């Protein structure tokens, strides 16, 4: 009884490591092939050089942007905006989500609106934000929050409503009530759903942020680098900024959300059907 259980654990961990290495190798190969195709298209001269620079020219532009400090400062500002906007989204989204659970009629009504607003294009908030708040950081934050808060709200609401009743009954039976029931049962039981919502909310927030930075010009930020690139027809700079934007999104998803998701799935045993 004891042995198969333990050996299975060890085997699972080994498999994880092997897959990681294979993944890294295939990712590297993918990037090399992509750069190769790009270089070939550049050498064939299909597009004029202003429209499509070579990978090397983009690399040079990336180095320039880094060495004069623009890129690091812009990235820092963009990430700070993301952090503030997204944190506010989580606080508001979870808060309203909980209120929706508590007050059922409000929850029902709010849910139907939230579902609609969740798919509302984030860029469509920009003109409203500019006139309401102005061409400043707060305007950008407003767009970020409006774009991501509804995913988090919906996932909090549905996550808590879909908790298997047996957990709550069992906790009640052992004397859990009020805050303790919420903190130690409802919240952890809703975590898998919450992670999905937060992950999706993050992705919406990131989309909205870069878009808003391009349109609500505050003279700093990754989105601003893109719009400056467009104004000066500086394609290498545009592509360099795109690469940075892509990398940030990729790193967050891979290193933060995937790992978080994986940990919860491991503990809950939600991966069993794929791992066995």
């Amino acid at each position, binding site marked *: 009884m004891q042995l198969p259980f333990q050996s299975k654990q060890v085997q699972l961990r080994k498999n994880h490591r092997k897959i990681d290495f294979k993944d890294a190798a295939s990712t590297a190969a993918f990037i090399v092939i992509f750069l190769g195709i790009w270089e070939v298209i550049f050498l064939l001269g299909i597009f004029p050089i202003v429209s499509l620079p070579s990978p090397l020219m983009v690399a040079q532009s990336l180095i320039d942007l880094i060495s004069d400090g623009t890129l690091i400062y812009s990235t820092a500002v963009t990430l700070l905006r993301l952090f503030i906007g997204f944190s506010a989204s989580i606080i508001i989204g979870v808060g309203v989500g909980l209120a929706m659970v508590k007050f059922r009629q409000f929850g029902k009504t709010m849910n139907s609106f939230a579902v609609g607003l969740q798919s509302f294009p984030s860029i469509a908030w920009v003109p409203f934000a500019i006139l309401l708040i102005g061409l400043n950081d707060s305007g950008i934050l407003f767009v970020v929050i409006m774009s991501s808060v509804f995913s988090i709200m919906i996932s909090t609401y549905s996550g808590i409503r879909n908790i298997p009743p047996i957990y709550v009954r069992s906790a009640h039976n*052992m004397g859990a009530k009020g805050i303790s029931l919420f903190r130690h049962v409802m919240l952890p039981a809703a*975590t898998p759903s919450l992670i999905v919502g937060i992950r999706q909310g993050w992705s919406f927030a990131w989309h909205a942020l870069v878009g808003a930075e391009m349109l609500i010009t505050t003279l700093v930020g990754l989105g601003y680098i893109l719009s400056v690139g467009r104004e000066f027809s500086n394609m290498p700079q545009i592509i360099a900024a795109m690469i940075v934007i892509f990398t940030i999104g990729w790193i967050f998803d891979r290193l933060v959300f995937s790992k978080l998701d994986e940990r919860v799935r491991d*503990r809950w*045993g939600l991966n069993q059907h794929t791992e066995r």
Partner: protein
Amino acid sequence: MSGKEQRISPIILHIKNISKEYKGSDSITQPIFDGLDLKIKEGEFVTIIGKSGCGKSTLLNIVAGLDKSFSGEVIVEDKPVKSTSQDRIVIFQENALFPWLNVVQNIEFGLRQAGVRKERRRDLAMNYLNMVGLSDFGDANVHELSGGMKQRVSIARALSLDPKILLMDEPFAALDIHTRQSLCSELLRIHDETNKTILFVTHNIDEAVLLGDRVILLSHSVGKIKREFTVNIPRPRDLEDVAIRDIVSEVMDEIMESSYENKELSYATAISI
């Protein structure tokens, strides 16, 4: 249970004149209990059987304080109880362990609710895990356990709270026959060691007769106790034993009789309630 102990045991639980109706969506009300009355002595092992839908689980929920829409009283040690309390702990059929906690944390959960200090919790939890033979599995995640192991943890979690009454809601129904047998004998050993009062709901007649000091047959149509069987045979009991077989067939006859009266159960469904 020896006769000596039975003589001196006071009544620990009195389910007094319970009535409850089931209200369907189309405003059809159906009585589940109609003045059901049951007294249980301290340390007694009582099994409750009846066909599905006769309210066995509902009765446990009422005793546990999880179901409050009924009339009548639940009296524990001469005091009427209105809500849930750690002196009446339910062990559910489906797995009610928390998947976000590991095995030992699951047991500690109840202890924290009971206000046990942090340093004490781990020791107590490990003690009870040891009692059910799972001391090596404290760090395991819940999904890594087999069905039988999960129920052992549930039992450990319940016992750690030192309840006066254990309420078991078909706890072994989802297990295979071998696991079921070993858990039954383990439960008897624990009952012997701790002398807990146990109210055990099952739809398996053999199980009910092998475990209980008394077997209570609930009847859906009457909403009351249909009949009570006293099993005055020392444990561990053997199904092959003639005295046991007699009681099992007596229970079976009673169920058959009521099903013929109702003309709603065939012989096959009657024996498999």
